[in-house]
């Protein structure tokens, strides 16, 4: 099949979990990578090595181990800076996850009555609720782009939505539910034209597309470590250096200060301004190793692989009677997460039958309730592939769906 990663067999061997069997001795077919990706051995090893040989606190430890830890942690920052093509390493702030990065922005960007924030109807809850809270606090207005019937952003009223009172335009690059790839550079330009900040949620994009913050032209971009083959507990906020240094601090504590007296403090510049307390050192090192790993394989090659698998999966899913795919049907316009319905069977029940065959998918609203509501769907089943997914695994899914229909007697 053209477009697949050439060394797929070798890549699969990098991921020890893919060798696992599940109850009944069935092999694992992991189609839940949009939820969290699996981890290659190098990432696991990098974290174990840090714990076994170099463990010490960073920055504040005046000894050799402290220096090694600091170097590894700051080295991870360099790797992430290269991964998103940041113009400076100071633009990379480590957070706990994408959710925390979005909340950091929603807490620190100043909003007031009369201001508005524009989001979209296809956001993950983390990019909705954080702005709802911010708008409620400030008395600002929350607005959003609607969706077209084929799962794209409806930009027809963009000029009314994004106006001179807009302070923030926050949007996902790739939808975790519909798979849609959004025109992020256009949206960032729109924000810029009215003097608003643009915030890109790259949680689903960073795993599978080349991310170049300078080419996108956005002000802020976030993603989460565990979806890019890194560990949980680590996320990234990238922001333009001068903007980060204008924002007030988020959490107060150690490492984020310049000097502290009992009456007041002055704050460090980014990134340390936003990294109060001992950070997730081991996790950051694991993330650095993960983005290196992806960079080594090549994001263009990974993107081509994802599109090939997605096209194959779209064909396969639509060959199952009663399946309705949500979102764009053209693989070129979407990422590797496909949500679908199967007439007569609830997503929970689908996921359960598939699980009994070793196939892991997600069932529910995928933290995108408004997007589901937009399409009149209460919940859906989502399969999501990644760089280690094979066509044979898609075949197993399709076969499992046929089986599901006969099990629930809808065939």
């Amino acid at each position, binding site marked *: 099949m053209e477009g697949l990663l050439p060394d797929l067999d070798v890549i699969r061997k990098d991921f020890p979990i893919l060798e696992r069997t599940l109850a009944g001795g*069935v092999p694992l077919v992991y189609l839940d990578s949009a939820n969290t990706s699996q981890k290659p051995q190098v990432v696991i090893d990098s974290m174990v090595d840090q714990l076994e040989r170099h463990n010490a606190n960073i920055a504040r430890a005046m000894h050799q181990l402290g220096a090694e830890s600091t170097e590894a942690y700051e080295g991870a920052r360099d790797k992430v800076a290269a991964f998103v093509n940041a113009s400076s390493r100071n633009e990379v702030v480590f957070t706990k996850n994408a959710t925390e990065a979005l909340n950091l922005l929603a807490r620190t960007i100043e909003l007031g009555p009369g201001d508005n924030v524009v989001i979209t109807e296809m956001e993950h809850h983390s990019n909705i609720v954080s702005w709802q809270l911010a708008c409620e606090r400030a008395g600002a207005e929350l607005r959003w782009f609607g969706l077209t019937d084929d799962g794209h952003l409806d930009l027809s009223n963009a000029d009314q939505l994004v106006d001179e009172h807009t302070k923030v335009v926050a949007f996902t690059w790739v939808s975790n539910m519909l798979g849609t790839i959004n025109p992020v550079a256009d949206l960032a330009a729109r924000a810029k034209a009215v003097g608003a900040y643009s915030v890109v949620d790259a949680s689903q994009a960073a795993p599978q597309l080349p991310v170049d913050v300078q080419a996108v032209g956005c002000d802020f971009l976030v993603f989460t470590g565990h979806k890019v083959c890194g560990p949980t507990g680590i996320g990234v906020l990238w922001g333009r250096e001068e903007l980060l240094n204008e924002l007030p601090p988020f959490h107060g504590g150690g490492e984020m200060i310049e000097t502290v007296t009992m009456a007041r403090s002055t704050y460090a510049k980014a990134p340390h301004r936003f990294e109060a307390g001992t950070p997730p050192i081991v996790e950051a090192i694991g993330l650095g190793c993960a983005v290196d790993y992806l960079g080594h394989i090549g994001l263009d090659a990974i993107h081509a692989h994802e599109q090939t698998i997605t096209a194959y999966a779209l064909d396969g899913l639509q060959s199952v009677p009663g399946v309705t795919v949500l979102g764009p049907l053209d693989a070129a316009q979407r990422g590797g997460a496909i949500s679908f319905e199967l007439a007569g069977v*609830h997503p929970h*029940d689908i996921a*359960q039958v598939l699980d*009994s065959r070793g196939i892991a998918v997600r069932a529910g*609203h995928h933290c995108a309730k408004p997007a589901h509501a937009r399409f009149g769907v209460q919940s859906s089943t989502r399969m999501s592939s990644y760089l280690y997914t094979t066509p044979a695994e898609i075949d197993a899914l399709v076969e499992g769906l046929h089986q599901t229909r006969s099990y629930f007697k809808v065939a």
Partner: protein
Amino acid sequence: MSTDLDALYQEIILDHYKNPHHKGLRDPFESEVHHVNPTCGDEVTLRVHLADGPRGPVVQDVSYDSVGCSISQASASVLTDLVIGKPVDEAMTIHQTFLELMQGKGQVEPDEDVLEDGIAFAGVAKFPARVKCALLSWMAWKDATAQAQSDSATTGGDTA
């Protein structure tokens, strides 16, 4: 694969799923609740109508509207079969028995005399992710019944 799956999806469950009993919202009722399973979005709206019986209040009717998986739908259907017409005390005991079965991790032997079709859910207890589905309507019913009783207590007990 099918043995585990069949333990979960007993015929009785699939029958209740295809033909749910007592479904639909009805009048009269003293309380209505809306419960959601936040992880999967399954929802139930449930009403309780109590009446005075010779030995305390009786569950006169339980009506509901719900969206969700086979387990949550079938369990609402079985719940209504089990509690409608029973004194509230007895219905609460059935509720407790069902709860213990569901929380028993598959180690509790179900009592068919008490739970009737409800014993079909014994297999669900082995699937931690599905226990919440089975309990959704049961928790809604307990909540609604408590509300109906406290309302009648505050209004002097003459509304039932």
